[in-house]
């Protein structure tokens, strides 16, 4: 299985989804599910290779001249993500079969989900930043489509728009950082960029690169203050929330941070920005999760919190932290995926996700309750589940910062970590105990609750069983998956050993504190929520978002109205003013005021007289108040110009100009006779001043341009060629004619076309009137 096939196959399969709908009686999900399963097995087969430290590289040339090639690269980190994407993808597709009935728009759903799968694989396998960016934005787009899957609901539309705006603007910031990286290193190739990591870290652009890059990663991975889109994204169908907004897409930002750690991390800027944003997000989102009443909102904030945890670890960037981050990534995918499925089942079977209406479901749904229990305990970090192992390691990472960061962090991070973990413990317990063991209140439910069909609970059971298996036997994955992935992030081979018992040490004490205080917090949750409600500030990030979503188009409209007035004069003022200003400013900046090397011809007295006549004619057009006088003045201008053509050795021009000028004058007389006389215009003095300023500016600009063109001739004019070859090649003595009909024959054809178009338009305009008249006569 080549890597390119793995990335492109979901897109190819997506094309055939409509056909499946047409020709297959089976639920499309069954057919679609084959692909992620096959891909998952394919990726499994890479494990032995990757364990040996080998990597796989595959390249298709795309735009080699710009260094942009479709290059795919597989190492431990990519493999971990690819397996999560295809593995969870498989279970989610199976789960969706039971979740989405035949009435839903399944074709769209599976096309979007396949598009997402391909895009996400593209993100984690790309070795070229530009290609990666394309896939990155594709994940945002497919996420947008999936959140808005039930597009008739206003909440879905709102959530989809919010997610798209936030993640795409972050993506654009990231693109800017890619460009800066290219400026510094001259490459879009991730391997080459890693090779010139020192160049980036020592460059003046480093801070800009870092901040723009992190904007992309933080928006995608819902870090504070960009997390606000994720709770609204829960409007998506639950399989999607489990897949995109918990297990995979939101981890793309984590992936990017891990991938870039070899060329961006290790500096104080990276360490402090990333770890502080991460830990704050973890604690804040955990705190927020406690008050939510919607089960999915609890899970959304919980996901944000867990992503914050992983971000913190990547910020530390110590070997232990990297191993923990990778390990927790894996664990989170399993327990959070199963918890989302549980919430989906509860929603499906009871008709509500409101935790206040739910209670005592354990008896009615024993299997679901078991899954929820294991998932919640894993999330809370209770031994012997996998969540306990990664939480222990996390604590260990926070207490081993001595010498890596400033002294205050050695108490700050452990304290915050414990605080975050206490919140996590409390909301996990609330989620599990309240829903499944709380006071039964079935009368508030729309449906009579009963156990879900096997198609819904089986994927959840399998997912959560990973939490148990890898919790009990972490050795199964420590060398095959965790170590290669962590080594890829660290850039050196890390040997991993995860164990349950480390002796009576600080992390264990922290866990005991978490369980103790967490239990107290859970028991007193009602009081805590009252306190929280009082503490909530009036200005929230969501309000700021809503306000700006409202204000941006309004401001845009104000600006547009200023500019698009509907008056020709205003448009011209803008256009001509801008053109003159930009040309004059360029001349000023480039200091081209001095005109040396002017190549000038002699002046005869009659030429001066003609010039005076010409200017007088033009002034006449400007000042005369009667139509006839203005037209005659225009004639003076035209005929003076043709005289100048004669002086300037252009007989053809003079002839043509004479004829055209005569006909034009006749036309002017004809048309103006039908039009009202030129009245003196009533204008405000401000308008008049602007007009005069613009006119003068245009005149001055042209004057300077002509002199500049005269003084600077960098290349030999091509006219010499026409003069030399005109007679020999075209056999004509009149060189102007030869150019027009021979060398530039197509230009003349274009000219004729314009004339025909003008003639037809004139005819049509007049004809229109005649037809109207005859109609009204009838």
């Amino acid at each position, binding site marked *: 299985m080549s890597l390119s096939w793995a990335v492109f196959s979901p897109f190819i399969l997506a094309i055939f989804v409509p056909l499946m709908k047409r020709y297959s009686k089976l639920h499309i999900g069954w057919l679609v599910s084959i692909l992620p399963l096959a891909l998952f097995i394919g990726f499994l087969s890479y494990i032995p290779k990757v364990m040996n430290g080998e990597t796989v590289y595959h390249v298709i040339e795309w735009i080699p001249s710009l260094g942009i090639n479709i290059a795919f690269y597989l190492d431990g980190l990519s493999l971990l993500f690819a397996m999560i994407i295809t593995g969870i993808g498989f279970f989610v597709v199976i789960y969706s079969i039971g979740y989405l009935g035949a009435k839903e728009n399944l074709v769209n759903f599976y096309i979007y989900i396949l598009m997402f799968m391909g895009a996400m694989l593209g993100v984690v396998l790309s070795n070229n930043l530009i290609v990666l960016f394309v896939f990155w934005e594709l994940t945002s787009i497919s996420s947008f489509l999936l959140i808005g899957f039930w597009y008739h609901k206003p909440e879905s539309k709102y959530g989809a728009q919010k997610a798209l705006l936030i993640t795409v603007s972050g993506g654009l910031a990231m693109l800017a950082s890619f460009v800066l990286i290219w400026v510094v290193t001259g490459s879009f190739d991730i391997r080459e960029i890693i090779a010139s990591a020192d160049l980036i870290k020592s460059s003046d652009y480093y801070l800009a690169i870092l901040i723009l890059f992190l904007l992309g990663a933080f928006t995608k991975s819902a870090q504070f203050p960009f997390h606000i889109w994720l709770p609204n994204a829960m409007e998506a169908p639950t399989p999607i929330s489990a897949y995109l907004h918990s297990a995979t897409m939101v981890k793309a930002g984590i992936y990017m941070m891990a991938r870039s750690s070899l060329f961006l991390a290790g500096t104080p800027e990276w360490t402090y920005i990333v770890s502080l944003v991460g830990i704050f997000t973890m604690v804040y989102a955990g705190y927020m999760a406690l008050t939510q009443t919607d089960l999915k909102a609890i899970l959304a904030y919980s996901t944000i919190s867990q992503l914050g945890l992983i971000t913190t670890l990547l910020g530390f960037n110590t070997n232990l932290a990297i191993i923990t981050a990778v390990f927790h990534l894996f664990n989170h995918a399993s327990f959070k995926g199963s918890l989302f499925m549980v919430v989906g089942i509860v929603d499906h079977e009871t008709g509500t996700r409101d935790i206040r209406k739910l209670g005592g479901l354990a008896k009615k749904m024993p299997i679901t309750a078991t899954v929820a229990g294991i998932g919640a305990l894993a999330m809370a970090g209770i031994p012997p589940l996998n969540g306990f192992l990664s939480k222990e390691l996390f604590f260990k990472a926070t207490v081993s910062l001595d010498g890596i960061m400033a002294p205050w962090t050695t108490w700050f991070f452990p304290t915050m970590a414990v605080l975050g973990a206490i919140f996590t413990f409390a909301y996990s317990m609330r989620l599990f105990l309240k829903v499944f063991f709380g006071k039964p209140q079935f009368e508030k439910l729309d449906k009579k609750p009963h156990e879900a069909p096997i198609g819904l609970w089986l994927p959840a059971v399998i997912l959560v069983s990973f939490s148990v298996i890898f919790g009990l036997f972490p050795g199964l994955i420590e060398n095959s998956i965790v170590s290669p992935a962590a080594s890829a992030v660290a850039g050196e081979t890390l040997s991993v050993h995860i164990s349950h018992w480390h002796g009576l040490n600080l992390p264990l004490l922290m866990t005991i504190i978490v369980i103790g205080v967490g239990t107290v917090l859970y028991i007193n949750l009602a009081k805590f929520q009252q306190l929280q409600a009082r503490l909530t500030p009036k200005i929230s990030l969501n309000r700021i978002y809503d306000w700006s979503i409202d204000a941006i188009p309004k401001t845009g409209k104000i600006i547009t109205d200023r500019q698009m007035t509907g008056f020709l*004069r205003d448009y011209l003022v803008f256009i001509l003013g801008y053109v003159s200003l930009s040309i004059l400013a360029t001349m000023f900046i480039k200091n081209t005021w001095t005109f040396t090397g002017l190549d000038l011809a002699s002046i005869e007295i009659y030429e001066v007289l003609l010039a005076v006549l010409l200017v007088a004619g033009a002034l006449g057009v400007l000042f005369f108040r009667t139509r006839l006088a203005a037209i005659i003045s225009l004639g003076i201008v035209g005929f003076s110009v043709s005289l100048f053509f004669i002086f300037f050795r252009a007989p053809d021009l003079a002839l043509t100009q004479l004829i055209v000028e005569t006909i034009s004058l006749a036309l002017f007389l004809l048309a103006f006779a039908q*039009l009202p006389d030129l009245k003196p215009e009533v204008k405000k003095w401000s308008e008049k001043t602007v007009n005069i300023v613009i*006119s003068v500016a245009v005149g001055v600009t042209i004057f300077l341009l002509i002199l500049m063109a005269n003084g600077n001739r960098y290349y030999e*004019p091509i006219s010499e060629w*026409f003069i030399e070859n005109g007679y020999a090649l075209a056999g004509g003595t009149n060189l102007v004619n030869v150019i027009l009909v021979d060398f530039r024959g197509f230009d003349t054809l274009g000219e004729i076309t314009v004339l025909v178009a003008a003639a037809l*338009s004139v005819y049509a305009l007049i004809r229109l009137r005649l037809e109207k008249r005859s109609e009204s006569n009838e």
Partner: protein
Amino acid sequence: MELLIAFVIAILFGIGTYLLLSRSLLRVVLGTAILSHATHLTILTMGRLKRGEAPIYVKDALLSYSDPLPQALILTAIVINFGVTAFLLVLAYRTYQELGTADLSELRGVSDE
């Protein structure tokens, strides 16, 4: 010579622009006519003035000719400009016929949606 012509062109451009910015449809049409004259002179001046003979090739005579290329371009421009002027005139005339005004400030298109 080039300096003088450049000066004349600048004045023509200034006057043409001012006419173009006015409210009267007629003045706008007059403005375009003046602007086109100015443009033709500009192109010709760019190719330098009064160098050599008129570009009529004389066989076996080593003459220097004035630049034929700008002349060819202007020839095209004059003709096209004629077409445009004719169209504008008819358009102005028809506008007045239909709408009863030739004042651009009264010819504002669609009112705000």
